[in-house]
C-alpha cells in the first residue's frame, strides 16, 4: 500500500464492536493538500473511521496507512505531524484559554519559545483577546475555536477534524471553513467529518458514508452529477409549455431528464450545463418560445445526499 501521492490509504477497513459492524469494507485514498469531507448521518461510522486513522482504534479487518505508517505503530515523530480535533470539547475547564494552549503545545513537545506560535493559532481563530478567560466561562462556539487552535498549535501536516462545526452557528461555521481553506492553501491536508451535508460544497473531495459503508467518493460537482445523473437547468418561458414541448425537449440528445415545475417552468438534467445552455436556447427559438430564464440550478447538498442514499435505502 505504498502510495506517495495519497496521505491516507485504507483497504477493506472494518471495525466492529460486539459483532456489530461500525465501519465495513472502507476503501479510501486521500490525496495530499486537500479538504477531504467525510459526510454521513449520525452513527454512520465517521468518528470510528477517524479513530482508526489516528490509531485510537485498532481495525477489526483491513489495512490502513496514514503518512505512510500503520497508525498502530505510529512513531512519536509521525504523531507530531498529525493534528486531531475530537468531536467533543475535551480541554480543561479550570484553565484559561492561554493555559490550555500551552498544555496542547507541551503535549507536542514544543519548545519554550512558543508564545508567537500560540498567539498565531489564537489569532487564527480570533481568540487572542480572550486568552485570559477561563475555559468554563466561554461560549460553546469559543470552545470549538479553542479546540481548533489547540489542534493547529504544533503546525500539523495532516489534520483530522471530527465534526468541527457541530453545534456552531452558521456565521462561525462559515469562518471555520474559511480557515480550513487557508490551511489547505498553506499545504495542509484536512480530513473533516460533518453531518451538515451542505458543508460538502466546501470540500475538495467528499466521501459519503451510510451505515458504516462508503457510498461514494467524489468532488462536490461529481457528487451532484452522480446524484441527479447530470447538471440541473431551470427553464422558464413566456409562453406556457405544453406536453409536446416537454416531449420534444426530452428527445434532445443532451437532455437526460425533464421534470415539470409549473406551466411555464421545466427542470432539465443535462450532461454539462454550461455547454448545453446555448443548444437549448437555439432549440427554444426554433420552437417559437421566448425564454425568460435559463440557468444552471445548483441543488443544495441535502437534496444531493438524499438522492445518493436513496438507492441504498431502497436496497435495504
Amino acid at each position, binding site marked *: 500500500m505504498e502510495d506517495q501521492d495519497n496521505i491516507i490509504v485504507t483497504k477493506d477497513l472494518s471495525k466492529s464492536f460486539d459483532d456489530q459492524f461500525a465501519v465495513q469494507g472502507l476503501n479510501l485514498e486521500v490525496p495530499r493538500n486537500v479538504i477531504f469531507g467525510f459526510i454521513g448521518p449520525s452513527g454512520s461510522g465517521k468518528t470510528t473511521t477517524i*479513530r*482508526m486513522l*489516528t*490509531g*485510537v*482504534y*485498532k481495525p477489526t479487518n483491513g489495512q490502513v496507512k496514514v503518512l505512510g505508517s500503520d*497508525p*498502530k505503530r505510529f512513531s*512519536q*515523530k509521525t*504523531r*507530531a505531524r*498529525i493534528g*486531531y480535533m*475530537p468531536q*467533543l470539547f*475535551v*480541554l*480543561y475547564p*479550570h*484553565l484559561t484559554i492561554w*493555559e490550555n494552549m*500551552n*498544555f*496542547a503545545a*507541551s*503535549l*507536542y*513537545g*514544543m*519548545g*519554550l519559545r512558543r508564545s508567537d506560535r500560540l498567539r498565531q493559532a489564537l489569532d487564527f481563530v480570533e481568540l487572542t483577546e480572550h486568552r485570559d478567560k*477561563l475555559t468554563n466561562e466561554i461560549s460553546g462556539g469559543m470552545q470549538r475555536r479553542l479546540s481548533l487552535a489547540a489542534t493547529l498549535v504544533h503546525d500539523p501536516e495532516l489534520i*483530522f477534524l471530527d465534526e468541527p462545526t457541530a453545534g456552531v452557528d452558521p456565521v462561525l461555521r462559515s469562518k471555520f471553513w474559511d480557515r480550513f481553506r487557508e490551511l489547505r492553501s498553506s499545504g495542509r491536508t484536512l480530513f473533516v467529518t460533518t453531518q451538515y451535508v451542505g458543508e460538502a460544497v466546501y470540500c475538495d473531495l467528499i466521501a459519503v458514508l451510510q451505515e458504516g459503508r462508503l457510498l461514494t467518493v467524489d468532488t462536490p460537482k461529481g457528487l451532484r452529477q452522480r446524484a441527479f445523473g447530470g447538471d440541473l437547468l431551470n427553464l422558464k418561458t413566456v409562453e406556457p409549455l405544453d406536453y409536446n414541448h416537454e416531449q420534444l425537449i426530452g428527445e434532445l440528445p443532451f437532455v437526460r431528464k425533464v421534470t415539470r415545475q409549473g406551466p411555464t417552468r421545466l427542470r432539465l438534467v443535462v450532461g454539462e450545463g454550461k455547454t448545453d445552455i446555448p443548444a437549448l436556447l437555439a432549440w427554444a427559438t426554433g420552437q417559437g418560445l421566448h425564454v425568460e430564464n435559463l440557468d444552471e440550478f445548483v441543488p443544495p447538498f441535502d437534496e444531493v445526499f438524499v438522492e445518493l442514499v436513496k438507492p441504498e435505502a431502497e436496497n435495504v
Partner: protein
Amino acid sequence: MSNPFRSFIRASAFWRKEIFELLRQPQMILTLVLGPFLILFLFGVAYRSQAPVFKTLFVAPPNSALAQHIEEYTSGMKGEFTFEGVTSDEQAAMERLRSGSVDLIIVVPQNALKEISANKQASFTIYSNQTDPIQANWTKYYGYVLVNEINRRVLQSVVQQGQTNFAQLQDRVKAARANIATIRSALEKGDTATANAQAAELSTNVDLVSVAAGATLDVLSGVQQTTGSPESSQAADAGSALAAVRQDAAAMGSSSGGGSAAATRLQNLTKMDQELAKLETNLGAVQKVDSAVLVNPFTDQVKNVLPITITPVDFFAPAVLALLLQHLAVTFAALSIVQERTEGTLELFRVSPLAASEALLGKYVSYLVFGGIIAALLSALLVYVLHVPMLGNWISFTVVIALLLFASLSIGFVISLVSRNDSQAVQYTMLVLLTSVFFGGFVLALSMIWGPARVISYLLPATYATILLRDVMLQGLAPSPLLIDGLVVIGVVLCLAAWLMLRRIIARSQ
C-alpha cells in the same frame, strides 16, 4: 530539539496543568489545610484522658451488712463509679438499667458468710446494658476493681484486728519470760514440780502469742515469698523466733528429772529467753506497720524515659498527618487519570506523541509538589500552633513525607487506571481510607491486630508513615531503614504497575 528535552516538555504539560487547576480552587486548599488542623485543635481541647464513670446502683438484701458498707467502699472509687444508692428491688433496678438512668447494677451476694464458710467464693453479679465493646470491657475491669477493693477491706479489717491484739501479745511475751525466770529459779532450787507447772504455763503463753501474731506475720511472710526477697525481715525473724520458742516450750513441758536433764533445761531456758527477747523487739516493730500497708504492700510509680510529656494531641498528630496526606494523594491521583478518561482528554493523548511515562512523571511531580506544600502548611500549624513536639530533624521528616506521598500517589494512580468512572475511583479511595483508619495504627495500635492480618497494615503507606513520623517527631529518632524501604517498595511496585497500565491504554489501539 532532542528527544529527552521534548519528553521533559511533555511531562511539564502536566505540572503546570495540575497545579493551575488546583490553585483555581482555593476553597478546597483551605479546607485541606485548615480542616484537619481545626479537627486536631478541637480534639485537643475536647479530649479528656479519663476512664468512663458509671452511674451504679447496688442491689442488696435489706439488712445486709455488706450493703451498709457499700457506699463507703465505693467512695474510694470515685473515678469509676457514681454511687446511685442501694436497693433491695432487683427488678426495679433492672428497669432503671434498661431505661438508661443507671449504667451498672451490682448485685451483692445474698449469703456471703454462708458461702465463704462452705468453702465457696461469694459472687458479686454486675449487669450492664452496653453495646460498645470497649465500654463493656471497662465494666468487666471495674467489677474486678470493686471486688478487689472489697476483698482488700476485708483483709485489712482482719489485719487491724490482729494488730489490736498486739498489745496483749506483748503482755503474753512478758508473761512467758516471767515463766522462764520462775522455771530457772525452781530448777536451780531443785523444785521440779514448780518448774513443770511453770513450763506448762509457758507453753500456753507461747501458743497464745503464736495465734495472736499469726495473721500479721503470715501476711508479711506472704509478701516476702511473693517478692522472693532473700534478705531477712523483722516479720520473718519474729516468725522464726516464735516457731523456735514454741518448739522449745513444748520440749520443756515434756522433759523432767534432775542432774544432766536439769542442766539441759537451764540451757534451753536461756535460749528461749533470748528468743523471746528478740521476738518482743521484732513484734514491736511489726505492730507499728499500718494495716493498709500490710494488705496493700505494693504500689507503683510509672516513669516515662522520654524527655517530654506526650499529650493525646501530640500522639495523634503524626497519625493524622500521615492519614490525611495519604488520603489526599490517593484521592488526587485516583481522580486524575479517570477524569482524563471520562472527559475525553485521554483520546487527545493517544493521538499525540505523549508517552505513558511522560504523563505519569508529570502527574507525580505536580502532585508531589502540591502535596508537599499542603504537608508543609499542616506541619507548620501542628508544630508552631498546636505545639506538637518535633524532636527529630526536618530532613528525616521531609524524606518520610515525600515517600508517603510517592507511595500514596502510586496507589491512587493504580485505582485511577482500574476505575471506569469518578464514583468508582472515589469508592476505592474510601476503602483505602477506611482500611487505613482501622489497620494503619491510627485508632488501634498495631499490636492489637491479629498477626497475619497485620499484612494489610503493612500494605498501607499510612502505617509506615505513622510509625516513622512518631519516631521522628516524638522521640527524635532517625527513620528506620526497614520502614523507609517498605514505603519505597510500595511506591515503586505500584508506580511500575500504573505505568504498564497507562502505557497499554495510551499506546495500544482498542
